[in-house]
């Protein structure tokens, strides 16, 4: 009973139930949903979106926000495709360089925020525009078509059964982030800074250093999503990243992240990504208007933040009771 109660109170329990119910209901109504091909497509979408969501989650963990996630991902994506097409770099080298671009962009964000103390919202709004402008300045809004066959093959390949190759780097990243937040010093520092920056500073954590590290990590993850998306789309689109903003907040929030910082859940965020992907696909499967996806996403965010708020209030009251 006690174990059950503890499980029911975790961040990932609610989203897990929703995911399972959604899969059962949709699979029952439309058998095509559980076909091997459809599961593969679903997992491909989840893989990329997971990196986008984790990129935002890290920043939510320190109690800030990063509006430039999509712009960094887009810049890394066109960097990746462009370096292969124009300079003829081998794919692994180009991918590493693209991740480097993301890391550098994240470092810029973090350094400016930590150094000036100006709100992350304004700084990342400005860098969003700067990164997007560099992207458009380089590409002049034309895509890079010369993505090598090897990269294209990777984007379509499957590991076993319906499990796509692109899910591998995403899964590795998710595990790495989980280990970082749960076990490593820097991860604990990130959560402590988000929970209470003053207390973190007093207990010997360098808050500016932590902020810079979190933003660098966020940039790296966003760049990873951009690179994977190039492999999946088989083309270096300058518009990659334009529509990431809503999703990047929706998934962590559905996964129980508290926007004030200090409390995030990797498993919850991944389930949040899955829920969004399943609902988006269901709208297509049942011929419901795809235009409604935006409305559903918005409602999901509102519902999730409302629920989190309620849970927060309950937990807060619960803590006051004698145990």
């Amino acid at each position, binding site marked *: 009973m006690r174990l059950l109660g503890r499980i029911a109170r975790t961040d990932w329990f609610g989203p897990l139930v929703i995911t399972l119910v959604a899969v059962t209901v949709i699979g029952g109504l439309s058998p095509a949903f559980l076909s091997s091909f459809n599961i593969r497509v679903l997992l491909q979408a989840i893989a990329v979106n997971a990196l986008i969501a984790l990129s935002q989650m890290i920043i939510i963990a320190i109690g800030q926000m990063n509006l430039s996630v999509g712009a960094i991902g887009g810049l890394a994506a066109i960097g990746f495709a462009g370096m292969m097409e124009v300079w003829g770099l081998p794919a692994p080298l180009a991918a590493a360089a693209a991740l480097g671009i993301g890391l550098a962009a994240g470092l810029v964000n973090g350094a400016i925020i930590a150094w000036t103390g100006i709100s992350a919202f304004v700084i990342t709004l400005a860098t969003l525009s700067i990164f997007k*402008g560099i992207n458009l*300045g380089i590409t002049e809004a034309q895509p890079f078509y010369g993505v090598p066959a090897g990269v294209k093959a990777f984007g379509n390949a499957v590991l076993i059964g319906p499990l796509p190759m692109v899910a591998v780097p995403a899964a590795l990243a998710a595990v790495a982030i989980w280990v970082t937040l749960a076990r490593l010093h820097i991860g604990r520092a990130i959560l402590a800074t988000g929970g209470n920056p003053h207390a973190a500073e007093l207990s010997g954590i360098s808050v500016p250093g932590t902020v810079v590290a979190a933003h660098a990590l966020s940039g790296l993850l966003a760049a990873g999503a951009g690179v994977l998306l190039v492999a999946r789309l088989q083309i270096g689109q300058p518009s990659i990243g334009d*529509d990431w903003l809503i999703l990047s907040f929706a998934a962590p929030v559905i996964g129980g992240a508290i*926007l004030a910082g200090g409390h995030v859940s990797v498993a919850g965020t991944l389930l949040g990504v899955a829920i969004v992907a399943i609902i988006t696909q269901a709208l297509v499967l049942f011929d419901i208007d795809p235009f409604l996806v*935006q409305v559903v996403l*918005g409602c999901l*965010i509102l519902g999730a*933040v409302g629920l989190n708020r309620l849970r927060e209030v309950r937990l807060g009251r619960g803590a006051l009771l004698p145990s």
Partner: protein
Amino acid sequence: MVAEDPPLAAPASGVARSDGRVRFYLTNEFGLALLIVLFASVFYALTPGFLSAFNLFALGRIAAVNILIGFSMMAVIVTGGLNLAIGAIGACAAMACGWMIEGLGLPWPLAVFAGLALGAALGLVNGWAVVVTGLHSFIITLATMSIFFGAMIFLTRAESFRVLPQVFSDFGRMKLAVVVSPLFLVALGAGAALMLLYRLTVTGREMLAAGARPEAAELSGIRVGRMVMLCHALSGLLAAVAAMLVIARNGAAIPSMAGQLGQDWLLPAFLGPVLGGTLLTGGKVSVTGTLLGALLVTMLINGLLLQQVGEFWIQTVLGLLLLLAVFLDRARRGYLAHRGLA
């Protein structure tokens, strides 16, 4: 206290005169006016066409929309919040207006009025959600931006309303005294109204007080929740006014007029108030500053385009400008605090 200071403090007495003068030179308004004159001269020297009647007219038309977008964001920043849904509300208001004329056959003044009312109503929804949940307006308006825009695209099937009465495009093309667009006068009128609101009316003062110190305001009998809702409604209304001006400029109501989810309005919305010295933490506004800030941004874009700086790089320039503005603002505040003037 913060809300009490008018932005342009005149020198009071002999001792304070030099301090007052320093303070005047360090106001955002003075700096912005200086920059506008400076850049106008530079652009004029490089391309004399910059100050041609045609370009000034075009400049005024674009500036009018940017100014109103800036006002719309400023109205919410007053409360220490923000409104990401400005572009989405604007697009909804424009499309509603277009539909009422084309779909319902309503006369245009009624349709414009309904569009403005819809903008205010959507803003009110934002404000209500913020007050009821106690959550930050960032996440609420992020969600409603998606909802409003998605619903609008769903209802309109992403199709424009192009058969609008001549009156809209006539208004957009009208030239007063050869160079002045009536759109610009609408923006100036809105600015004057806002200035009256914040300086002279009780409601305006209460909005500022609620933004500066919510607890103190609550204790002194201001209904802070109601003020927050009112500020959001005002923001929605101003976004709708901006949308009506865009209809007049385009002669049509187009769903993509503010980009995907209305995100294209976001940067200009913040540039105006931030350049103009509106405090992001709330409690202090500068209507003149926002107006001058939006004017400067519009002029820079126009001037750079005339210089054939690739239009793709403009976005980078705007981002750098926003960074520069917040850095300068911080430095200026630091200097004023150091000299004990702020």
